[in-house]
């Protein structure tokens, strides 16, 4: 039996709702609140049941509008590269600072998306981020944490 992607997503949502409902029932409330008409558990419990009912209906009822996705037309390679670069960016941003990490992120993203005009890639990464940082930090007075620039004395 082949299960459609929409029904599969609904099944995942059903599992999520069951887990959510289980967690909702286990929320610790104050003893005096235990039998109150409304406590910290009430709303999540309603939501858990709503999720279970809606996802069950989606799984059970026949699909009238099916969403067809041609997987041959999906560019998995580029999206995986981009997600990996984004994850690395998130991991290093606190350690090496906003300026270097963001500039390297932009430069490598341009590269992995197939760009090879090195000059333009450089301008739209390092000077672009510097200008953006100046706009935020210098002109709008919005604090941007950057240990590296602080270390070399560019930022106060």
């Amino acid at each position, binding site marked *: 039996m082949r299960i459609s992607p929409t029904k599969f997503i609904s099944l995942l949502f059903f599992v999520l709702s069951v887990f959510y409902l289980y967690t909702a029932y286990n929320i610790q409330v*104050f003893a005096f609140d235990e039998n109150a008409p409304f406590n910290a558990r009430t709303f999540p419990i309603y939501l858990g049941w709503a*999720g279970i009912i809606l996802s069950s209906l989606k799984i059970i009822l026949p699909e009238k509008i099916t969403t067809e996705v041609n997987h041959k037309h999906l*560019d998995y390679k580029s999206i995986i590269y981009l*997600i990996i670069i984004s994850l690395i*960016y998130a991991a290093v*941003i606190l350690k090496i600072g906003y300026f270097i990490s*963001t500039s390297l992120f932009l430069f490598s*993203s341009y590269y992995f998306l197939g760009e090879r005009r090195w000059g*333009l890639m450089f301008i739209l990464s390092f000077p672009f981020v510097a200008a953006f940082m100046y706009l*935020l930090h210098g002109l709008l007075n919005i604090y941007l944490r950057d240990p590296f620039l602080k270390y070399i004395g560019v930022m106060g």
Partner: protein
Amino acid sequence: MIEGILIGLSTALSLTNILMVMVGCFAGTIIGMLPGLGPMTAIALMIPITYGFDPSTGLILMAGVYYGAVFGGSTSSILLNAPGIPGTVATAFDGYPMAQQGKAGKALAIAAYSSFAGGTISAIFLLVAAPSLSKVSLAFRSPDYFALMILGLTAISAFSSKGQFLKAMMMVVLGLMLATVGQDSLSDITRFTFNNMNLTDGISFVLIVMATFAMSEALTIIFRGKDPNRAAKQISLTELGSIKVNKEETIKMAKTIPRSSILGFLIGVLPGAGATIASFLAYGMERNYVNEEEKQKFGKGSVHGLSAPETANNAACSGSFVPLLTLGIPGSGTTAVMLGALLGFGIQPGPRLYQTNPEIFWSVIMSMYIGMVVLLILNLPLIPYIARILAVPRNYLIPLILFFSVTGIYLMSFNNFDIFLMIGIAVVATFLRLYDFPMPPLILAFVLGGLMEETLRRSLLISDGSPNFLWDRPITLIILLITITIVGWQIFSTFRKKN
């Protein structure tokens, strides 16, 4: 009211705020023209920039961005038949054929004039109706608010999902579930944090918007990069033609604009309906109004067919501010983003906003009109140049969208857990969008989640746990009956399609 208008004018006409409207309209137009980036994303991208501003200035910038983005969406609809946002889909029905006939400049000009007229008329409605509506809304109690939020969420699910009501309702529940993460507002008990300190304060609204719109849109564009149906069509910028509108066309527009404005504004006021429904209904209504000869031109470059959705679209944008400013309930996904921004500024929209913060209430309304004027003055001469932004290669566009998204989150928390969470949610949202699970209901539910729980809590405590509060008050009952009608209509139309 006159005093309020003067307060609003003096705030909106300050040099800084005029500059902000101009910057907002220009930035909004450019962002709105970019593939897939609509007003919601445009406003979300502005949130980090407005952190340092005072609330009026920040909101004025966002109002400018809103109108600019709606107009920008129309530009890509007309030139490329590629509506950036659902609200401009109907614009493409006649705008694109007109552009294909070598009248692209004229089509863009008609869209600009219609947007301006629709926005102007609806700004007047807003000026007159908002204070009276806010007085009426003072009669609203917790059960009515709860029912109204249920109506808003049901309506947005019904209208935004193209016949996939259940999918949209699932997104509503998911949005509400995400809103419950963190401390309970009354008891401070932590929920669904799994002992992670980073989740104690809940998930940030900006994070959710950036993940589900900006970032997942960027990932979707890359993901569908090989799809031949979505390949960008090339357009010669020299073929834009004249932007002059002749007398006959002006008369046609003059007939269409008033009725489309009224319809657009009224639909915009309804929670959940918004610009998309308004533009489609205006297009359909206009087709019924015109004579047989004009009717034949619909879909082939009709002036009526282009003017009606554009007018209604902008009128609905102003209309959607009525429930936001007077009830604190956003009427659309975009105003939901604006509600989040207002809350970020420490302002609680609602019936008392125009008493407690009149300068904000009136300056936003006045700046809308100023925004309209600025939009027209800026965009008409810039049309041929602005169109060039469509040529930005996606190799540059996508990383820049990701950069803006990450920066927005980093500025808020200086915490990489939030960035990881945003990437995770964006990946999930990308797959959900691939299978037509709509994101606006999720956003609206996430924004309303806290308020909904609070009003339900109050209602249940007042009624001592009894569900009687749902039918004790006439307002609550009427609102719930409307909700039931919407759900009933969805079920009926599903069975009708089946048969």
